[in-house]
C-alpha cells in the first residue's frame, strides 16, 4: 500500500485505535505499537505513538501508572478512563458510518 496514504489515514484514527486497544486492557507504549502492527496497521514509530498517548493523557481519556517490569525498570502503563470509553463508543459509531460511506463509493467505482 502507498506508505504516505496509509500514514495519512492513520493520523486521523491513531488515537481511537489506541483507545480501542486500551479498552481490551491496560498496556504500555511498546506493547501498543506491537498490537497495532499485528492488526495490520503497519509499523508505528515511538515518535508518533507517545505524543498521541500524551495528548490522550492530557485530555483525560487515559490515566497512567508505573509498574515494575519483569526484572527491568518500571514501565508506564495506560488505562482507558470512563471519559475515554465514552469517546470511543461515540467515535466507533461515527467511524462505521464514515468508513461505510467511503466503502460504498469505492466499491461502486471498482464494480463498474
Amino acid at each position, binding site marked *: 500500500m502507498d506508505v504516505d496514504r496509509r500514514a495519512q489515514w492513520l493520523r486521523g484514527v491513531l488515537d481511537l485505535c489506541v483507545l480501542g486497544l486500551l479498552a481490551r486492557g491496560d498496556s*504500555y507504549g511498546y506493547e501498543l505499537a506491537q498490537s497495532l502492527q499485528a492488526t495490520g496497521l503497519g509499523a508505528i514509530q*515511538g515518535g508518533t505513538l*507517545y*505524543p498521541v498517548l500524551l495528548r490522550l493523557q492530557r485530555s483525560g481519556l487515559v490515566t497512567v501508572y508505573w509498574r515494575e*517490569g519483569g526484572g527491568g*525498570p518500571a514501565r*508506564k502503563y495506560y488505562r482507558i478512563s470512563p471519559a475515554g470509553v465514552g469517546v470511543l463508543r461515540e467515535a466507533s459509531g461515527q467511524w462505521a458510518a464514515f468508513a461505510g460511506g467511503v466503502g460504498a463509493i469505492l466499491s461502486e467505482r471498482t464494480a463498474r
Partner: protein
Amino acid sequence: MRHEIWLAALTDELRRHGVGPDLAGHVVAEAAGHLRDSGEAPLRAFGPPDTYAAAVADSVGGPALARSVPAGPVRLRAVDITKRYGRRTVLSGVSLTVHAGQVAAVVGANGSGKSTFLGICAGLVGADAGRVELHGTVGYCPQAGGTADFLQAGEHFALIGAGRGVPREAAVRDGARRAAALDWAPGDAQARHLSGGTRQKLNLVLAGLGDPDVLLLDEPYQGFDRGTYLDFWHEVWRWRDAGRAVVVVTHLLNQLDRVDVVLDLSAGSSGVAA
C-alpha cells in the same frame, strides 16, 4: 547515535522546550524503555531529539500558556511618546502600559523606532513629547555593545551587581547561575574575545542581575542558536511568573501568542498597545 547520548540530548531538549522536570523524566524513561524493548535505533524510532521534544511539548500544551497570576501593579507607563530625528518623525504618540507579571512585545519593521522607543523607556534617549513612568528598578539589555572589552564575565557581574546593591560574591554567583540557564559557562576570557552570541548572553545576564522589577530587552538574542533562543524565552517566562514586567523588542513573531501585550510600530498602525 548511542542510546545514552540520544536520551541525554532528549533531556536537554525537553528542558529547552519548557517541559517540566517531572514530565521530562517520565518521557525519557518511557523512551528508554521503548528502545530497550524494541531494540530499535533512537533516531529511527523517535527521530532527532529536538524534533521529538518539540512534539512532546506540543502534546502537553507548551510552557506557561495559561495565566496563573493576575497582572500586578503598573511597572511601566509610556504615554504619547513622540520622537523626531531632524525632520523625520520616528515615533508619534506611542503609548504602552506594562504591569508586573506581564510580557510586552514591541514589533515593527526595521526603522520603525523599536529601539528608540525602548531607549526612551530606559531613560537613555530623550523624547520630544510624552512621558515615561517607571515604578521599580530597571534592567536594560541593548542589541549590541553594553559590555566592557577588557573585563571578564565575572568582573561584569561584580560591577553591575555593585550598581544594584548586590555584594560581589553574590553577584558573581547569580551571574553564573543565569549564564547556565542560557547554556553558557563563563570562563576568564575578556569580553572582547567572546563571540557575538556569547556577548549577548553576557548582556542578558547583566540585565537580570539583582532581579530588577522591569526588564527592557532589545532583540537580545542576536547570534543565539536555536536552542539558546528557546532558553531565552524560558528566562522571559520565568521573569513574568516571578512578577517582573518584561518588554522585548523583537522582529520574530512566532512568540507573540504567548505575550500579554503587543505594541506594533509598523507604519499605519496606531502605535497604541492592544
